[in-house]
């Protein structure tokens, strides 16, 4: 189920007489969750599309179908976090209470599990702590101390563009290594940070590497390594200008920081590359989450293309919070016209109510139509991306029961 298109495929000419309403193949979420070879599911998408809820719902459904799951969330809503018992940001997976077998389980596993009850852990990412741990693991204690106290490190580890993304991937790598050695989990579900660009986490390792490999950083390191003569006129000009603007202390702090970081750099890059390779491995599945809005779908499209370029295994698209399609064949225009007639004539005590209902219906039909067009366009531009549409619930989700409902909707099995 990858998004790779065969380059040699010849498309038939489609003339204007051929009706071509693109529909995407259905995404079989249960098949994905039940497949023992699926070891990692990464949910990505732009901010505000429901990634965290989707991740939690997938993890819960997988756990209640017999997988040993841990879900790594970034910034869950308070009540959702409470319901999963991860109010504290402590970077440690905590067991979630209240799980129960899905209907037909554990029998459906055919004795493949010895567990009496389904199990799932959840954890919330502590970005700075993860970064600190990486530094501590890579450097000698004195070096680590020097790095951790440097003002550049403090700023970098808490607000560097991409740090959160990078640390989410680092944590994923750690969980994966631990899970493989201890057999504690067989599925890791990862929620990605609400980035400005949904792609930041793919670029984060690269960006960190290129930062440390950059000419300026190399240049700052040069005096520490070689003869002072390397200080060219160019560097003099540059540091001169920087000192003028930023103050002399800035350059000194920066130099210390870069020199210290350089010693742990090899380890950093090796880990970043390992994680990147892990993301490309066949056991990984990417789910792109979007809302049925032009902006969110544009980001999703960009994401789908990027994943295929980077040969990351795309499982499909989740279109969240879709307007539930109404019943009946009354069109929006007919409904609005009837609503206006009722308001004008006002012949019965319930006329205003009925007019209101007709207007709601018209709004809903219009939204459903607009969303359908957006999805069709997406499918036309990205054929073959398996898709599941999850209708918006009338109420907010903040407990396991709500997550179960979302899980059923994701699996397309809600009645």
């Amino acid at each position, binding site marked *: 189920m990858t998004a790779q298109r065969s380059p040699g495929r010849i498309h038939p000419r489609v003339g204007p007489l051929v009706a071509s309403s693109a529909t995407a193949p259905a995404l079989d979420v249960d098949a994905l969750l039940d497949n023992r070879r699926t070891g990692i599911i990464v949910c990505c998408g732009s901010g505000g599309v429901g990634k965290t809820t989707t991740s939690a719902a997938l993890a819960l459904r997988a756990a209640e179908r017999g997988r040993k799951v841990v879900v790594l969330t970034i910034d869950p809503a308070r009540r959702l976090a409470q319901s999963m018992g991860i109010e504290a940001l402590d970077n440690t997976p905590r067991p979630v209470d209240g799980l129960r077998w899905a209907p037909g389980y554990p029998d459906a596993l055919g004795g493949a599990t010895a567990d009496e009850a389904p199990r799932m852990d959840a954890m919330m990412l502590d970005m700075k702590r993860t970064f600190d741990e990486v530094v501590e693991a890579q450097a000698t204690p004195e070096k680590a101390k020097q790095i951790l106290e440097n*003002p550049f490190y403090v700023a970098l580890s808490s*607000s560097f563009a991409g740090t959160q993304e990078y640390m989410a991937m680092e944590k994923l790598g750690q969980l994966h290594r631990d899970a493989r050695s201890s057999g504690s989990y067989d599925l890791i579900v990862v929620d990605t940070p*609400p980035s400005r660009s949904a792609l930041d986490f793919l670029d984060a390792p690269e960006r960190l590497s290129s930062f440390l490999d950059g000419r300026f950083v190399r240049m700052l390191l040069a005096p520490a390594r070689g003869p002072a003569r390397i200080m060219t006129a160019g560097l003099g000009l540059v540091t001169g*200008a920087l000192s003028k*603007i930023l*103050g002399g202390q800035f350059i000194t702090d920066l130099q210390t920081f870069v020199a210290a970081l350089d010693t742990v750099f090899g380890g950093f890059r090796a880990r970043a590359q390992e994680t990147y390779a892990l993301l490309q491995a066949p056991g990984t599945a990417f789910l792109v989450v979007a809302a049925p809005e032009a902006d969110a779908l544009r980001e999703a499209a960009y994401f789908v293309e990027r994943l295929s370029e980077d040969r990351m295994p795309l499982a499909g698209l989740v279109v969240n919070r879709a307007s539930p399609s109404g019943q009946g064949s009354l069109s929006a225009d007919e409904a609005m016209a*009837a609503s206006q*007639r009722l308001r004008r004539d006002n012949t019965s005590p319930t006329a205003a109510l009925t007019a209101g209902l007709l207007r709601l219906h018209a709004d809903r039909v219009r939204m459903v139509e607009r969303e359908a067009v957006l999805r069709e366009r997406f499918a036309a531009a990205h054929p073959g991306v398996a898709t599941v549409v999850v209708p918006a619930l009338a109420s*907010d989700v903040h407990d396991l029961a709500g997550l179960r409902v979302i899980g059923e909707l994701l699996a397309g099995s809600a009645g």
Partner: protein
Amino acid sequence: MSDWSRVRLHVVTGKGGTGKSTVAASLALALASHGKNVLLCEVEGRQGIARMFDVDPLPYAERRIATGLRTDGDGPPGVVNALHIDAESALLEYLAMYYRLGRAGRALDRFGVVEFATTIAPGVRDVLLTGKVYEAVQRNSRNRGAIEYDAVVLDAPPTGRITQFLHVSDELAGLAKVGPIKHQADTMMTLFRSPRTAVHFVTVLEEMPVQETADGIAHLHEAGLPVGGVVVNQVRPRDLRVKDLAAARKSQLDRAAIGADLAGAGVEVTDELVDGLLDEAHDHAVRRALEDAQRKVISGLGVPAYELPQLPQGVDLGGLYELAAALREGGMA
């Protein structure tokens, strides 16, 4: 009369997915309604303004993108200009403007310092972005021939980052303790903390964005930054009465009476249609109850709130003007 007539810099923030950029654009159109000239800035490299106004991607230069909202009796509308601010261009412009760094500026670029300073050195990037916004609000003699604006609207980073973004002197504190850039940041803070700045929050009537808004307001207060209004976006129609909503929630609406009304209005009545309408009414009523609860939370925040309707057909250029009119009517502009 606008609630914010003294404000020169309108900062618009909000949680992802709440329509922050749409609101920023509508606010710019509304502010430009009575002959005022407005600058709409974006800083997140998304070219969202160009898409909303259906123009080519914006360069690092002020471009005229729209005429302000037309209103009755206010005289001719003003103009909305737009500016896409990126940190690299802002740094080079800053260096040229203040240091005449022709050669050194290019050297900085060649040695990757510009890239380093803008994408890596945290805080510096934000200072460069807010610095350009500051320059647009507080035009000085160094930028000869630049347009003087009556108001600047900033489509700012999301709620989770807004305090950090505006608190530039704090962000730099650990890094640049002295020097012109530190001084610059302090000057900018004076504007950002003054009543000439207002930070507006965009939310929808859902629990998480409202909670984030409340947290964001608290953080701004702590940082001494001026809180503006709350714009409640995508509000559902409110034409059902409380009594009817309650009945709809309990699935107790008068099915026969509704059927009769529909028939009277010339609609072909089927069971399926009536069932559908009643289902939709039920969902709507449940949603409305949640919305009303969140509306209460918002009214407890102690700042003015402005509601914008949900546009079922999506937001296009016409939609922006529609929302601008609603903001103007509500007194935000």
